[in-house]
């Protein structure tokens, strides 16, 4: 079953609930995280307390690894089985620019010097929102130190009417500065990360980012990006999160779905998925829980020149509470959703 957006599956399950279809749902397993998960869990559309009982769940070291029990800060309560991890990484065309920005501050200077060569996917696109969240976290890290207040802590709490304006004000100031130097002067935005990648291939953009680093060398191998592409991680921090699979409450085959979810967490499936040629998605398993043969599955000998160099992610930044997504999205839509 193919969806152009996970939200279509959410719509589907809701439609079924409204048509009183409570045990013969058309969706058995959804790849999900973040806002879609929050919506489905609020509306009780998901099966509970199964993921934590799967045998392979132990391999994620759940006791010491909160990343598999919390989805954007929301406890999963066994409704989701972890499937992969992602971190925001950047890539650039080395024939167009030789010094890509490595911090958020440098990014502003870089776009001023290279006007029209950077953009981000239009919210509510997941990747575009991730860029905004990365910017928001960095802005507070930089500012909080200057003014001596800890506003950043608010990001781990739900967005409320009281704190929203204060927390988001620096982001809007930053974007007001940034937008005129973006692709199409910030009056038009790319639709998705994939669209952004195509524009890099078109040489319209020289710098872009992705949540799935291995996607970049894979695209070069398919000729979808030029060979001059290089990947790197921002030195001030990479936003990172885990993605999951979940079972709708009305799934027709919940047992089979659990078997599939357990398979997806197996060392064999995870290693295969991490292979750059296949998908290259970072595993959720903690390698120290595996035996040596299983660990050997995860080794990569010949990295691609466009791939993200090994251990280049120096510092990871956690996702803010999911309620901030809505706050940022609405604020963005009001300010920039309609070009003047």
């Amino acid at each position, binding site marked *: 079953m193919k969806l152009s957006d996970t939200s279509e599956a959410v719509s589907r399950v809701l439609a079924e609930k409204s*048509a009183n279809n409570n045990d013969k749902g058309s969706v058995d397993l959804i790849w999900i995280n973040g806002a879609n998960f929050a919506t489905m869990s609020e509306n009780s559309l998901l099966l509970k307390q199964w993921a934590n009982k799967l045998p392979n769940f132990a391999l994620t070291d759940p006791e010491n690894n909160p990343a598999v029990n919390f989805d954007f800060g929301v406890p999963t309560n066994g409704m989701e089985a972890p499937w992969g991890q992602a971190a925001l990484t950047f890539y650039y065309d080395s024939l167009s620019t030789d010094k890509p920005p490595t911090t958020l501050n440098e990014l502003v200077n870089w776009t001023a010097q290279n006007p029209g060569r950077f953009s981000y996917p239009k919210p509510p696109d997941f990747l575009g929102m991730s860029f905004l969240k990365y910017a928001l976290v960095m802005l507070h890290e930089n500012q909080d130190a200057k003014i001596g207040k800890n506003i950043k802590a608010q990001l781990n709490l739900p967005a409320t009417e009281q704190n929203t304006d204060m927390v988001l004000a620096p982001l809007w100031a930053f974007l007001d500065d940034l937008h005129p130097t973006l692709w199409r002067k910030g009056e038009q935005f790319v639709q998705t990360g994939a669209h952004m990648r195509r524009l890099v291939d078109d040489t319209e953009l020289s710098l872009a980012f992705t949540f799935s680093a291995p996607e970049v060398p894979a695209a070069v191998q398919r000729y979808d990006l030029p060979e001059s592409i290089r990947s790197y991680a921002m030195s001030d921090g990479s936003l990172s999160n885990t993605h999951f699979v979940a079972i709708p409450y009305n799934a027709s085959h919940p047992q089979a779905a659990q078997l599939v979810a357990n398979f997806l967490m197996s060392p064999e499936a995870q290693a295969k998925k991490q292979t750059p040629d296949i998908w290259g998605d970072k595993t959720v398993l903690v390698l120290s829980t595996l035996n040596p043969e299983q660990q050997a599955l995860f080794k990569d000998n010949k990295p691609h020149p466009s791939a993200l160099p090994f251990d280049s992610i120096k510092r990871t930044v956690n996702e803010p509470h999911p309620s901030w997504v809505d706050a940022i999205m609405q604020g963005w839509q009001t300010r920039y*959703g309609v070009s003047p």
Partner: protein
Amino acid sequence: MSKNTNNKTTKEKVHSATITGITAPYKTDLFTRIVSLSPTFLLLLLILPVLGGLVCVLLPAFSWVTALEQTTVSLQGFHDLWQTPGLTQMVALSIATGLLSTLLAFVMTLMILAAFFNSVWLNRIEHLLSPILVIPHAAAAIAVGFLIAPSGMFSRLISPWLSGWELAPDGMFPHDPYGISIILGLTLKELPFLLLMALGALAQPELGKKLRQQYKVALNLGYYPITAFFKAVLPVLYPFLRLPILAVLAYASASVEMPLILGPNTPPTLAVTIMQWFNDVDLNLRIKASAGALLQLALTGSLIALWLGSERAIKTCFNGTLLNGKRHYADALWQKITAALTTVVIGFILLALIGLLMWSVAGFWRFPAVLPEQLVLLHFQSAFTQMSTPLFNTITIGIVSTVFAIVLTLLCLEAEQLSQKPLSTFTSLIIYLPLLVPSIAFLFGLVWLQQLVNNQTAFFNVAFTHLLFVLPYVFLSLASSYRRLDPHFAHVAASLGATPAKVFLQVKLPQLFAPILIAIALGLAISFGQYLPTLLAGGGRIATITTEAVTLANGASRRTSAVYAIIQMALPLVGFILAWVLPKYFFKSGKNSSR
């Protein structure tokens, strides 16, 4: 349509002597009963889903959604809708793109007809443009995008030697805020449709003959060719173009594929926004989306009313001009302009297709190279490994909906002949209903209805929804051939004692072999190209080549989307080639007699 019925009545008069007493009191059997019920069935089949769908979008628009435990009627949805930032721009964009593209396509159709009426070039242009008709909107949009993008063919052809661009420039197309890209795409796609509809009307023997004679008389009276067309031909021809034009207008103002691939997103058109709301995670947006669907309905309705109103106004204003006796209005200049414009359009289309072909086999192809660095089959290979399910779905859904549409159409047309009464004007209008009501407005309600009735067989739901769009085209395509059928053969067979069923199966159908094949090819092409109905009725579970192509169009790979666009074009083309070749080998005599 009314002209057809006139044809028929005159024919009936001619043959009334032979008809009376032979076929009139046919023996009622199962076949004739099915046949006589079929027009009613056709009406129900078209009216129920469309009206049912509309009602089911009306309820949530007034905040009545049982799923969200909202069972009070309120205007909250409309209130939210008015608060949407950029609503005015969305509406303006929908109106502008819908109206301008229809107007442009219509004006260019008239210019081509006027400049090349009675010239061999008209047929040549028809042959050059008719393949465009079967190209799905998504594929056409992808091809246009390749051409006009800042790194597109135009820009590559002048870089860097003329423009000095080493990197793609900061351009405006596609996705320009004024919707010019959308208008361009829609116009190129609708022009061949209107042209073929006009030529189809002219191909009706009596009408065509009459118009050509009037045209000749006008020329003999000293009218210049273009003026002669506008004064002597157009007033009679226009009524045959009205419904196709309104269908184009309704489609253009509410379409999703073209604006999605070529349009802006700050904000997009109303139809695209509504679709995004319907698919949003926030389930409460459903209410706003339903209210938006009603706004879309009003928007399209007003555009149609505006068109019909302007039609009246123009008729009144120019009535005097028709009779003023003036023989020419800068005809020579217009002739040149039309020739130039036609060349540009055809050149544009050819370049777009060449670009599409090159992207589908391109290796690295950095701007501003005009040709790819290497040619590879990788994109076709990897597409084919993933294509089997979408391809299978596309073809089976196409076949199921087309076969059903063909059978029903043939039965209805047979009912017309058995009862010797043409279908009522009402029925003829209803056949157009799914083309005149914006699909975004009734599809969501229809999907909800389908959920209630049956939600397990997405395949059936999709095929049924396709049928709504296939049926009108199949009917229009078959009706004129069926009504033109020489009744002598049927009468002779009947007088020899053949039952109506036998006459239908063994006498009429073989004569119609060629037109039926064309109708099948057309039906398949329409079904292959459906995006929104497939996406919604299938709940995303039924992937077809078209849904894949649209999903990929704004995606990562120009190369993969070029491959999908080519497959999208190839499928209907195969159908039409078969429809063209097969009659040469089967029922040869049948083909001749139906001519």
